[in-house]
């Protein structure tokens, strides 16, 4: 077996480790789909109400539902990465992994794979539920949906890797960051409103974040202004930067943990 196939086998083994957990726990599976579905239902009814009372939203009644679903892609992307890592810390398993032939970058790759699987399990039911409930299908976005999904997943991955690095550096006391850190950028991401709504001094900060480009692009498609390739390109360029940063920070902290002896003594 060559080095590449061995590497692939190790990444698949780590995915298998997390799939075993999902397979053995239906409450976990249910939880993954629960919040995106509930979120979508709440915002769906809100959207329906606004549609009958606001000419702007009436133009594109699905904007809020679409935004909710896509925001969940990013949120679940982040959570998928962070939870995979937290799972290793909760089970005090990092020591075994760190002395196995698993490379740190392979661990990162497995976390990203599992994040994709978890996000699909979590978000797909909500997207499908929106069709009979509100006659809204996010799949009508067509190919741009794939681009939006990929871009937001990558943003979530970058944050998830940052959170995992913080947990490795500061211990499980920092685990709540997995749930809350991403909300710090929510106001600037323009999920439910155009970036132009923000005060002028905040707008450059918003444009430095990939999701701002994605949600602006989504509104452009849904309001009939067409697909904005420039927004997607800038989102992907920024994402490449943030993901590279997330990976670099995680690997750096991993190395630091080997200096401090933190891989053997992790836990609560």
């Amino acid at each position, binding site marked *: 077996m060559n080095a590449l196939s061995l590497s692939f086998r190790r990444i698949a*083994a780590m995915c*298998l*480790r997390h799939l075993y957990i999902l397979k053995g726990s239906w409450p976990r599976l249910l939880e993954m789909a629960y919040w995106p579905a509930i979120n979508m239902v709440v915002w769906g009814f809100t959207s329906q109400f606004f549609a009958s009372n606001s000419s702007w939203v009436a133009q594109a009644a699905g904007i809020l539902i679409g935004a909710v679903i896509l925001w969940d892609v990013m949120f679940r992307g982040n959570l998928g990465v962070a939870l995979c890592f937290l799972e290793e810390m909760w089970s005090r398993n990092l020591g075994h992994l760190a*002395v196995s032939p698993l490379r740190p970058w392979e661990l990162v790759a497995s976390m990203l794979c599992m994040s994709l699987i978890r996000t699909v399990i979590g978000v797909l039911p909500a997207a499908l539920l929106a069709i009979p409930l509100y006659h809204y299908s996010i799949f009508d976005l067509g190919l741009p949906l794939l681009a939006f999904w990929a871009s937001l997943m990558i943003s979530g991955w970058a944050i998830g890797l940052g959170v995992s690095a913080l947990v490795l550096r500061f211990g499980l006391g920092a685990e709540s960051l997995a749930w809350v850190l991403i909300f710090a950028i929510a106001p600037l991401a323009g999920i439910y409103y155009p970036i132009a709504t923000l005060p002028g001094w905040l707008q450059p900060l918003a444009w430095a974040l990939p999701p701002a480009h994605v949600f602006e692009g989504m509104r452009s498609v849904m309001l009939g202004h067409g697909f904005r390739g420039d927004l997607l390109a800038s989102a992907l360029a920024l994402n490449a930067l943030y993901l590279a940063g997330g990976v670099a920070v995680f690997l750096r902290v991993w190395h630091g943990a080997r200096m401090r002896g933190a891989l053997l003594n992790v836990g609560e």
Partner: protein
Amino acid sequence: MSAIQVRSVSKAFGSVLAVDDISFSVATGSTTALLGGNGAGKTTTLSMVLGLLIPSSGAVTVLGEDMARHRYRVLPRLNFSSPYVELPLRLTVRQNLTVYGHLYGVDDLKGRIAQLSEELELADFIDRPAGKLSAGQKTRVGLAKALLNQPELLLLDEPTASLDPDTADWVRGYFQDYRARTGATIVLASHNMTEVERMCDHVLIMKQGRIVDQGSPTDLIGRFGRDTLEEVFLDIARNRRHPAEAVS
């Protein structure tokens, strides 16, 4: 030929010097013990040999490879077991062994798991979650994980801690048999002197981060004029007798 060579290795955590300029080698095919009181530096030393911890200075060579540069060449050839590092508790024993078997690139993994299940008597609980096992069962599972890749070098941190005498005796016997069958090198950190006397060809005694004495159990007992290794250990731990005095 040495399986392990440690040269002038030190490890400091801030201002605390956990390991202070130690050098030793472990002969291929031998069983070597690291002895010492709590905080003597045994686990830190084992961690540096595994590459889990980066030394502040010095060099570690394992199975002919420099651990600072070629750690991943050697990791598939060694394995490790410690009661203080858990396997995922929600996964069954079989699932854990499957995941780690893939991580170590084990060929015919199902066959290897079946073989270990028979040798280590895991069959009764192989499909039970690891979190629901007794201490003795967990130790056997940890041992199965450590033996999955048929390691040339096995590092064991307190391998019989918290085991009843019968299970502990069985585990020791298994290690001796494994070494006899495969020619593997075993390094263990232990507080159990009877275990060390029975299993080990060579003993390294650590105190305050330094190796203060070493030799075969018989050699150490003879030089200190004692009947057991435990008495030698207590002499060193309590500064009752310096090895030089023991010789004279």
